[in-house]
């Protein structure tokens, strides 16, 4: 996997686009926004985890998101697992 594909900008772009498909307006999806504010729930988190695994081979469990409130925290969780 090249460094370009796993850069923070790319991760953010891929996941923001995916979240925009789930309901929230693209402009409202920011690092500071909470999942609750965006009306993204546990079913959406499962889908986000699938996209993360499909895109970068990183396996996430629902428990990994237990303390995640904001979009930024979720991105950091993914980036911290990057090889």
């Amino acid at each position: 996997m090249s460094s370009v594909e796993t850069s923070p900008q790319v991760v953010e772009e891929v996941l923001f686009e995916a979240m925009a498909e789930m309901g929230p307006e693209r402009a409202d999806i920011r690092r500071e926004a909470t999942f609750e504010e965006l009306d993204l729930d546990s079913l959406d988190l499962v889908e986000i985890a699938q996209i993360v695994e499909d895109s970068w081979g990183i396996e996430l469990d629902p428990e990994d998101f237990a303390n995640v409130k904001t979009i930024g925290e979720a991105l950091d969780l993914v980036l911290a697992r990057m090889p």
Partner: protein
Amino acid sequence: VSERRVAITGVGAVTPLGVGARVLHDRWMAGCSGIDEGLGRCMEFDPRLVLTKKEAHRTDRFTQLAIAAAQEAFEQAGWGGGLPYDPERIGCVIGTGIGGIGTIESQHNILRDRGEKAVSALSVPMMMSNAAPGAIAMRFGLTGPNWGVVSACAAGAHAIGSAMRLVQHGEVDAVVTGGTEAGVTSLATVAFARMGATSRTGLSCPFDARRDGFVLGEGAGILLLEDAEAARARGVEPLAEVLGYGATADAFHLTAPEPEGRGAARAITRSLADAGVVPADLHYVNAHGTSTPLNDRAETNAIKLALGEHARRVPVSALKSAIGHLMGASGAVEAIATALALSERVAPPTLNYEEPETGLDLDYVPGVPKPLPARVVAARAVGISNSFGFGGQNAVLCIAAH
């Protein structure tokens, strides 16, 4: 305690003839067909025009069709700006034959091709047969009784009958009801063909000697039923009234109707008795008319059994000649078509009827619409809508327009 009367105050439909109940009526009257290459697909339906992104992402097509039809019904009934009753006093009862079979098929393919971890967490909420009433309750904030109805091709009619009882008995003031189906999928298309139910020629010609099976279709029909007094109190002129409902079982065969039509005839008789009308009061019969060899003969027998001499006088027409068989949606779409036909005092045509068959000798309204007798121009017009499901499940609605 006298039963409350049940008004139809709004209708919405998405069908192979287009988006909208009025579109359905007008195009059927004009003799248009929504069938293309032997299938009845809703080609004009774009879920993005009605649904939110979140709704569209989390729903199978059968729920999307229902939401769009419900939105139309709400606006027609004047509910677009807000609910006219306590939300707890508004129910939602919607039928489907199969539910989210498109989701079942696609997720099964994903499981087979990509493994367990690729299966969507939304699979169950999308495929479940009760998803449509759940999604409609969320969209409009309806917190009264809410469930799905499953009785194959009679589901839409059973749903309306159940909803009618909720209003009659005072359990609620209004119900959002109807049926929906999106079963034009690879598995369903093949499975119906394997049992010999669908047409090889792709021609939907109910009651015609050439008929060789039904044409698979998709769509949704949603009606708002209200306590007639409450509707009047808020200044609404109902489109029509649900007068009666009769439901029976053949207890005969898994898929074939009882050939003499006795079970279906009992459903017709019960709906008329429930409505307080006699066969001679009936101005129009909206047939189940699937274009299968067995149904159309058994249904003709049933109409004769139930209506006696009057069977030869009353016009009988089949919407499936124009849109195919919408399965769990058909009973609801046809109830809407019946209400609109009665309100305009006209029997819409059975399309593609050219070759009569011995014994199938009712007035099937071939080709062109037929005005209902002049005497009903001023008085109320009364009709029935027949629906019969695989499993021998029969539901007949008696509808009147004033």
